[in-house]
């Protein structure tokens, strides 16, 4: 089966529908599927529920889908970098479900692993626990969190072979593997596509079984907080 597509729009063809749930990789602007987000803006698909740690910044990353009002609901842990997000949220146009970062990652991983729920001590005794089942294990309280089962995953890796085996680079891995796992279909964008055998099988970060469609492209990779030290300090 051919997994490599010519463009982001081709790779998303037939997969998008209004009201769908999408899991997106990335942390801040690091390791986000820039090209697939752009193609989703172009597609006009709307009323999206998106599980993603953050929601981009104004005018970049998932922030673009906010500007066009294509997002109905975000499931995130931190959204502080985005003025348009706050405007839509405070005016009631946008729903927001805060998830602790580790809970969000595990909800994706669990969904992808066929686990519909799990118990965690994160959030016990806080607003996060409201309405959730509490169960005691070994004398401690845990709350029930549900796996995320998305209609589509959009993720970004560094290199993939044509069968979808892939490797990520440095901290751009972040939410990409769990996000990739929890979608019915996973579309991945990469910086380089290689032939099977070119990646060391022992060094694959995510096996190709989780990846259905692949595109290659140029990434802007915008830096959110540029911090440096002076050479004299070395």
């Amino acid at each position: 089966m051919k997994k490599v597509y010519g463009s982001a729009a081709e790779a998303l063809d037939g997969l998008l529908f209004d009201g769908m749930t999408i899991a997106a990789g990335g942390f801040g602007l690091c390791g986000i599927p820039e090209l697939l987000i752009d193609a989703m803006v172009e597609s006009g698909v709307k009323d999206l529920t998106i599980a993603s740690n953050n929601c981009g910044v104004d005018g970049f990353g998932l922030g673009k889908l906010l500007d066009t009002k294509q997002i109905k609901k975000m499931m995130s842990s931190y959204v502080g970098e985005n003025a348009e997000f706050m405007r839509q949220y405070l005016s009631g146009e946008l729903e927001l479900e805060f998830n602790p970062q580790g809970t969000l990652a595990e909800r994706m991983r669990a969904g992808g692993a066929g686990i519909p729920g799990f118990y965690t001590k994160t959030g016990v005794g806080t607003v996060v626990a409201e309405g959730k089942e509490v169960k005691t294990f070994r004398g401690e309280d845990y709350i029930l969190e549900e796996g995320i089962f998305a209609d589509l995953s959009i993720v970004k890796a560094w290199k993939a072979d044509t069968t979808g085996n892939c490797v990520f680079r440095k901290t751009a891995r972040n939410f990409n593997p769990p996000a990739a796992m929890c979608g019915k279909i996973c579309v991945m964008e990469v910086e380089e596509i290689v032939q099977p055998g070119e990646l060391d099988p022992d060094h694959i970060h995510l096996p190709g079984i989780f990846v259905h469609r692949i595109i290659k492209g140029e990434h802007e990779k915008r830096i959110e907080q540029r911090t440096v030290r002076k050479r004299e300090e070395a």
Partner: protein
Amino acid sequence: MPWDRNQMAARAAQELEDGMYVNLGIGIPTLVANYVGDKEITLQSENGMLGMGPFPFEGEEDPDLINAGKQTITELPKTSYFDSSMSFAMIRGGKIAAAILGAMEVAENGDLANWMIPGKLVKGMGGAMDLVAGVGRVIVVMDHTNKHGESKVLKECTLPLTGKGVVDRIITNLGVLDVVEGGLRIVETAEGVTEEELRAATLATIVD
């Protein structure tokens, strides 16, 4: 004289022992890394890295290499990278020895509030709830009072909680307190701060 930011960070660094894996929060906790001296401390960044190095030299910033505050950083020879679910497996699983975090309020039972002020801009808890629930020891570093001079060391938190009964030790500009049975115990006061001054700035129950 109460401790300044750097003195608080230096005091917090004394909490760390050779060989520890540690997660540092944003603000004063970040400064703790400057005071670990000869101790071999491995810093975890919850976006997926163990062995966080210093900021890069100008021109060597890598957009694929950031910390949890989204700042560009560098790697070390001992660095490893992993995904977010693995990152929180080590946090929730108790593998991280300590987290040093800032706070808005701490209560005498160890309750911590540091993520939300109702009615103000809400940005989210990020990884803070997972950290305080999971790591071996939670150390709070903060000013003892807010900018209105009101105590941040309370009988009960008024703000939404990040975690319930999670704080082990509080390091403020006035001194060091431990959360113990029945309230807080004074461990030490900052140089030049009397125990009476520390008690006067504290609303929480202090036990001997």
